[in-house]
């Protein structure tokens, strides 16, 4: 069982994550959108969206720090365990609260605003369920585990983090997760499930965050590209006696 949960399952999810994005980019470029509901309702959104998104940025940064950077490395640069712990909480708790609060506002808005709810698909709802669960579990782990030490002290950098890195090192160590507290197990499991779903949901918008806009001039002119093959969209040019009027001969 633990082999399945902590070796097989993660690899499947990662494969889906990678392959799914390739497929999505190739075959559903026009669908690669978050289907923004800003036009329907923008007041709650103005609060909830930045709250959630910036909170998540902080959360992601914290995960990089906690999962990717080995404990040995932080030790080596002189960051004590308690100092790390403080930094993690001082940064993580606000980020987490922001993410949760933001998500709560967004979900409330989505459920109670008529047009917004009408525009919500089943795919969205499932995604919200999984994403929300991951986030809630995450904050639970932080508060219950790292703050109040429910179920005893547990240093995830001894268990979860090395396991995480072991997946990518192609030398998986399932026993590390098998011994982790249930909350971390659930969080990790659902996170990988989220990764598996990711490319098939609106979350793909994360990878098309418009960073380029920071440096983009306001007016973008695009002239025709006469290079062969450059103007193909999803339809090949039509032959026939009756040409659409707008197409130049």
């Amino acid at each position, binding site marked *: 069982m633990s082999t399945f949960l902590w070796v097989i399952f993660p690899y499947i999810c990662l494969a889906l994550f990678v392959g799914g994005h390739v497929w999505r980019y190739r075959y559903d470029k026009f669908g690669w959108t978050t289907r923004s509901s800003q036009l329907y309702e923008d007041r709650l959104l103005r609060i909830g969206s930045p709250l959630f998104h910036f909170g998540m940025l902080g959360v992601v940064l914290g995960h990089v720090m906690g999962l990717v950077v080995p404990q040995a490395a932080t030790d080596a640069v002189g960051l004590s365990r308690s100092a790390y712990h403080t930094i993690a909480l001082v940064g993580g708790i606000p980020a987490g609260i922001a993410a949760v609060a933001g998500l709560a506002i967004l979900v409330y808005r989505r459920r109670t605003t008529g047009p917004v709810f009408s525009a919500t698909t089943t795919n969205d709802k499932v995604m919200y369920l999984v994403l929300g669960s991951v986030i809630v579990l995450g904050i639970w782990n932080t508060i219950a585990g790292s703050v109040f030490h429910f179920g005893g002290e547990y240093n995830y950098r001894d268990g979860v983090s090395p396991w995480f890195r072991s997946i990518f090192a192609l030398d998986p160590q399932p026993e590390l997760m098998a011994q982790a507290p249930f909350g971390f197990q659930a969080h990790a499991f659902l996170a990988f499930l989220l990764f598996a779903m990711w490319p098939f949901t609106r979350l793909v918008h994360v990878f098309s965050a418009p960073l380029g806009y920071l*440096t983009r001039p306001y*007016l*973008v002119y*695009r002239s025709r590209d006469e290079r062969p093959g*450059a103007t193909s969209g999803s339809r090949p040019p039509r032959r026939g006696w009756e040409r*659409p009027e707008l197409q130049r001969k």
Partner: protein
Amino acid sequence: MNPGLDGPLTNALVGTRRYFTRSEVSDDNRSIHAKGGRAGDAFYRDRWSHDKVVRSTHGVNCTGSCSWKVYVKDGIITWEAQQTDYPSTGADRPEYEPRGCPRGAAFSWYTYSPTRVRFPYVRGVLLEMFRNARRAVGGDPVLAWASIVQDPDQARRYKSARGKGGLVRSTWEEVVDIIAAAHVYTVKRWGPDRIAGFSPIPAMSPVSYASGARFLELIGAPMLSFYDWYADLPNASPQMFGDQTDVPESGDWWDAGYLIMWGSNVPLTRTPDAHWMTEARYRGQKVVAVSPDYAENVKFADEWVAAAPGTDGALAMSMGHVILKEFFVDQQVDFFTRYNQHYTDLPFLVALEPDTTDAGAADDGGGAAYRPGKYVVAGDLDIPESTSENAMWKPAVLDARTGDVAIPNGSIGFRYGEEGWGRWNLDLGDIDPLLTVHGTATGTARVVLPRFDALDGKVSHVSRGVPVRRLGGRLVTTVLDLMLAQYGVRREGMPGTWPTGYDDPSTPATPAWQEEITSVPAEQVVRLAREWAENAIDTGGRGMILMGAGTNHWFHSDQIYRAMLVLTSITGCQGRNGGGWAHYVGQEKIRPIMGFQHMAFALDWHRPPRHMNQTAYWYVNTSQYRYDTFTADDVDAGTGVFTGKGVMDLLAQSVRLGWTPSYPTFNRSSLVLADEADAAGMAPADYVVDQLTTGALRFAVEDPEAEENHPRILSLWRANLLGSSAKGNEYFLKHLLGTDNAVTAAQAPPDQRPTGIEWPDDVPEGKLDLLMTIDFRMTSSTLFSDVVLPAATWYEKHDINTTDMHPFVHSFNPAIAPPWQSKTDWEAWKAVAKRFSELAVDHLGTRRDVVAKPLWHDTPEAMATVHGVVRDWRTGEVEPVPGRTLPVLVVAERDYTAVFDKMTSIGPLMETVGMLTKGVPYDVDREVEILRHRNGVAHGGAGDGQPRLQTDIHVADAILHLSGTTNGHLATHGFKNVEKRTGTPLHDLAAEHEGKQITFADTQVAPVPVITSPEWSGSESGGRRYAPFTINIERLKPFHTLTGRQQFYLDHDWILGMGEALPVYRPPLNMTELFGETALGEQNALGVSVRYLTPHNKWSIHSEYQDNLFMLSLSRGGQSIWLSDVDAEKIGVRDNDWVEAVNRNGVVAARAIVSHRMPEGTVYMHHAQDRLIDVPLTETHGRRGGIHNSLTRIMMKPSHIIGGYAQLAYFFNYIGPTGNNRDEVTMIRRRSNQDVEY
């Protein structure tokens, strides 16, 4: 120094982009020029891409007749866009294109609408009965049908199920069986005139119209008229012009110097044409809008004349008063004088009759009183012409040159007969007609004239003097003299009661008088009248009045129109580009009318056709006459001309005198009559006369409730009778269909019933055996039908389309084949015809059919009633002579087994007899031969060797080849025939196009302009815009009237008796007096009483488009009633509240639209909203709310069923009682329970 972007940080950031891209960033950092990266364009290119574009149009009776591009992608119709390839109108003039409105742009949605009829449907209980019966009788569907309709219980079962759902899918084979069997049975048992077809407005799709019409006429069933039924028919037009709705194209509005929109809300109802009205203002045209509400057209106008609804006649009369006084009495204007001498009846002499009532005694005491009488004709006088041919039909004038009477050419007496060749023209020769007797009079006479402006509408009288001469022992005067008296324009020395000035409100027709009626300030009226006349003088008659339903849907609209037409005609505006009347209602102008009529009514196989006036048909057959407490006395002028007669009595009299058509005609089958005549060894006409005079045979209209006189089958296609045009809708449901209804009115009490009509106590319900509708969407008509056939839409068939508004012919073309199981009308009716012919072998064979036809306009039959004196053979006043004092009786031999062959080939009459349209004969041997080659020839059967009419394109080409408007050779030939009668040159009008033949293929390429033809009164020669009667004015061709001129005066007995010899103001009917409705403005538990008007919707064309999702989204999404904020306040209604409107005819439940644009006391329910979308159950009776016509009822005006008297003679859609409905009032209240149920 470049301004850069806002903020130094942004500027710096953006400025770095140039180092990271190959694209060029501008110096000011505002723009970046990239090459390519346009893969995303595929998104909109994909959206726009299509596989083909097909030209088609919309056949919806909107008059737009716009050519559209229909786009097809992957075999799906996706959208449409306006065509922009109309022929140019020439220099210095805007173009017609683009044409198209929001309604039309939404049509493609219908192709895949959820309410599209995809399959044939039959009422479930009926289908079950039919299948069982068929098994029981051993397979013959005719016998099966017989067994059902002859069993009262079965009949009641399926009839009472009408409108209650239960439509079950069937197959084409089965439904065609049922329909054909029902038709065969009915022809066999009751006779063919117990069957009727209703499809309106041929112009919108004549081939589709012809599909059912041709079949029905071949079997001898009547087609019901539409123009009069829709109340769109202006009876003033035949009365005055002898022509029906010949009007300018919209491009001619550009030519007018002064434009009045009077009862026509142009931006809403002529959407694609409205631009002409706005553009012409930049040329200096003054635009005036007459409208009770702040309608869409008002904001474009220079002046708004806010006349109260239905009072337009008073407004027009008072404008006439000013013009007559200032331009005919105070001075004589040469332009007006010459025009009226030539083109109107102003100079014609009228004899005065002594007044035998005491109306004249009351006024002015002393002196004999007279009433206007008959035109003085040659036969009345002691002059050489009195013995000439048709002498009783040649009215006289006084010649200023000789001081004596003269008989000018051009009257109807010259139109027919041998002596008239070359003399039927308006060339006065040396005659200089006196417009007035004043100045050469030998005395004056006091004439008693009626006025109807009392609130209760009852007549009173006023005495006015006219100058007179003595002729043939009688006092005579001119029409102008009578007009001046009628209009209250005083002259020196005339006795009587005259107003003291424009500001005298006590007597008609001063500006102050009208102000009390219309609320239009007197000052405005005076000023506009002067402007109008002065413009006519300055521009040579370029003053135009656009008219429409707002002034035409009233009971007395003929009088409203006559008063308006006085303004255009006495000022010389009629018959000019940019001048005259412009009456726009439905899409009336089927330009290739000749070819259309002959093909649609199967005149190539049988003549005459059966044509029925639909208003009278339903007045009788939905038993509305039984609820009519409105007697003929209510419309007479106290002369007693109708004493003791109800409207129904007058109808019966009109029928038996051959004035108006009536089908069913006799109380016996017309086939049986022929058989009986043969058995008796008599000619059928003689036999019928004999039977009628002995009373053994009666007219069906005298006993409508008898089962042998019931209508049995009604077919609807291109029509939505029960959701749109059925005035008295609830009576249809009750009496005709035999199902649930909301009638609460009581039948007429004994003292208000017609005297000559059978009146059984029990009135049958459910007279109709079969109601069949062909449509592509579910409407009230399909939901009430027994059989529903799926029709192809306008993007799925071939047909043509013409309109009054422009001179082009458009084609329909299929963008896709008819989907699901739908068929084009032509294919559907062919299928019925084929099966009918097969079943006829055993049941009918060849039969002879006695066809009764009324006396026709544009034929010598219209000279039946000398002087318009009514004499009835029933009372022995005159001998019963078919075609003179009786209907025309013709025997048609119908081989019922050959109906399909005849339907699909052109018959021999075209070559043996030729064509006749509006009195002009045509030889079409050449055209028929061309069609043999074009369409191919039928082999075998009744049509062997004849040109085929197999496909809809064949029919279209036949129509186009057989009309002068699309065949220059035929037009030229026709004009040459007319020239023989007029003696004046005419054929040069078409000569420029003599070799041109417009084919269907031509119309597929681009809109094609038509050719000037004798079928119409206007000329398009040289590329001029079309205006009516330009040929009459410019080429001195007579109008088709008694005098040959435009007539302000009418002297038929009934019209004189009604006090309407001259234009006179008649107010809207007083519904309180007549029907006991609550008085306008009064309030009680049922709400407030308001005038109920049903003008045009913005978001639909009648019931079409109303159920289209786009239109529903733009409008309120269901039935709505507009009311003023003042009335809303009275009944506590806020915008969008549910309200109910109730009167004696029915109930409507709708949402309120509250607006200050509405005048107090009037509500608008836009017509034909149908009752399929968002119509709840009512509080009043717990059933579904009705349609707009649930609150109306048929009201017939007797003057509209006059016949056999010059221009007052019948022709299909030319003249007739109208389905007027604007005089209605209703109670309206807020629903106490705003939570509605469905």
